[in-house]
């Protein structure tokens, strides 16, 4: 079994989930509470990765970070090496690819919060920040957890974007899904099966844990 690939995938997914949480919260907040008429445009952009083939997204990310693009040149000037086919490129591409999986559950949870609670918070002297951290976030915590876990799981399982942007460098960009593909290509069905099974069991366990946290099957039914 390719433990290096597994470790790399988990590391990538964890980093992406943390970053997506950090940028997903403000984006979701803005999408929920903005009154700008053009809001639907941003919503459409955020949802794009859901419908685009990974190859399309991967191609444009590759062009965007290539040595001829401003981003690629700035990166080279800063770090001394190119961005394409690096772990950082994978993180960048995965953030874009998993963005809707973070933003949509969080935005949906935000929009479920009763507006009168936000107004009550304001009349009690709380700033928008305080209202967000004391009221909106605690009441949306299920959606936030869902968003983080879905980003993690979705990044863990991605294939096309990784292949386009990262290539297949062991220990750098060869994630678990690429490793499985390699093993199948070289007829190592036994090890491919072992890795695939591990990914399957792990993904199921993560999702089951999330739904358990959300549904709380161990809790006593509430009175009202």
């Amino acid at each position: 079994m390719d433990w290096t690939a597994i470790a790399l995938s988990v590391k990538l997914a964890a980093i992406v989930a943390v970053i997506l949480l950090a940028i997903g919260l403000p984006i979701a907040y803005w999408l929920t509470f903005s009154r700008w008429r053009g809001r639907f445009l941003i919503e459409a952009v955020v949802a794009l990765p859901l419908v685009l083939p990974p190859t399309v997204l991967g191609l444009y990310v590759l062009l965007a970070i290539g040595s001829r693009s401003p981003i690629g040149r700035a990166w080279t000037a800063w770090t001394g090496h190119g961005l394409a086919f690096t772990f950082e490129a994978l993180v960048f591409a995965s953030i874009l690819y998993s963005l809707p999986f973070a933003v949509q559950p969080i935005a949906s949870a935000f929009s479920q919060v009763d507006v009168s609670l936000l107004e009550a918070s304001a009349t009690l002297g709380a700033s928008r920040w305080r209202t967000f951290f004391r009221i909106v976030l605690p009441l949306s915590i299920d959606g936030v957890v869902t968003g983080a876990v879905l980003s993690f799981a979705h990044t863990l399982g991605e294939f096309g974007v990784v292949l386009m942007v990262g290539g297949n460098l062991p220990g750098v960009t060869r994630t678990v899904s690429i490793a499985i593909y390699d093993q199948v290509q070289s007829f190592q069905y036994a090890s491919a099966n072992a890795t695939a099974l591990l990914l399957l069991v792990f993904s199921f366990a993560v999702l089951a844990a999330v739904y358990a946290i959300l549904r709380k099957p161990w809790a006593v039914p509430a009175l009202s």
Partner: protein
Amino acid sequence: MTPRLAASVRKRLSDQFTLDVALDAAEGITIVFGASGSGKSTLLRCLAGLLTPDAGQVAIGSTTLFDAARGINVQPQRRKIGYVFQQLALFPHLSVEANMAYGLAHLTEAERRERIVSTADRFGIAHVLIRKPGAISGGERQRVALARALVTDPRVLLLDEPLSGLDHATQSRIMEDLRAWNSAHDIPILYVTHSHREVFALGERVVVLEDGRILAAGTPQDVMDAPAHETLAQLAGFENFFTATVTAKQPDAGVMQCRLDGTATDLEIPLADTELGAPVRIAIRAGDILLANQEPRGLSARNVLQGTLAFTVREGATVVARVDAGVFFTVHLTPSAMETLHLRQKSPVWLVVKTHSCRQVAL
């Protein structure tokens, strides 16, 4: 002297509805009364800063909170206005104590604790401080909402139908506590309601809203007892409205006779400067009509009308009877009175109405 709340606001919500109100509230309870959709909540939201008026000013004493012309619009969190929402808006994930502490972030832990305990004592919720809002009774929730707003020591308190859905006994106990609180603090309190019962029970002053405008303002007695307007009369609990024609006037007795349209029935009503033969509109409270199961004699009341009982409906502690006396009258009586009278459908009945129970309202 306590700073007064002075406001004049205009807010267009739709093509059909514009709020356009000027009011000046001194300390004590001012009732804002009106049917749903009359603009009561919109007015409170404009005062609290949750809605921005299109024009006008809002001020507490010499502090301007909003002035459209000068471009002043103080954010709701800086207005120091207590607001109790119709749905109470208690924070469900926080304990009662944390709900009350929410508006006290600027105080030290010890000051916070002291204020919460004394306010909770005053409103009888000290025993539920550690519970969540979902785990206490409806009356307790209402008290918590009130206490959460008052513990912050607001300069003005706005109450948006805070006691609707509670039984009368619980309502009046909560109101007594609010009065007791305000006798010490003496701030202006605006209390929004659509229940005419609450107007008399609570208010020193009442402002009546209709379609976004003030229809009348004054003491409850002034506004509700001599309603010059049919909408006002309806709001004030008048259930019976009839169109009639003046048939005779007795200026010496201070009364006049009116023939109810479509009937041969005359009603004696207080004299007004309506001309003979002119149409009038008469309003009578259902509770001001007596019902008899045989023809009454030797009464001071001048109007005794014969009819038949069409049907009765039980509404809480009141029986609502509809009586056909050429036109339909609505009469309120108690269930026990209903039993004593042995009334059935189609029973012959007599209606007794005092002259001064008949109010003339604008056509």
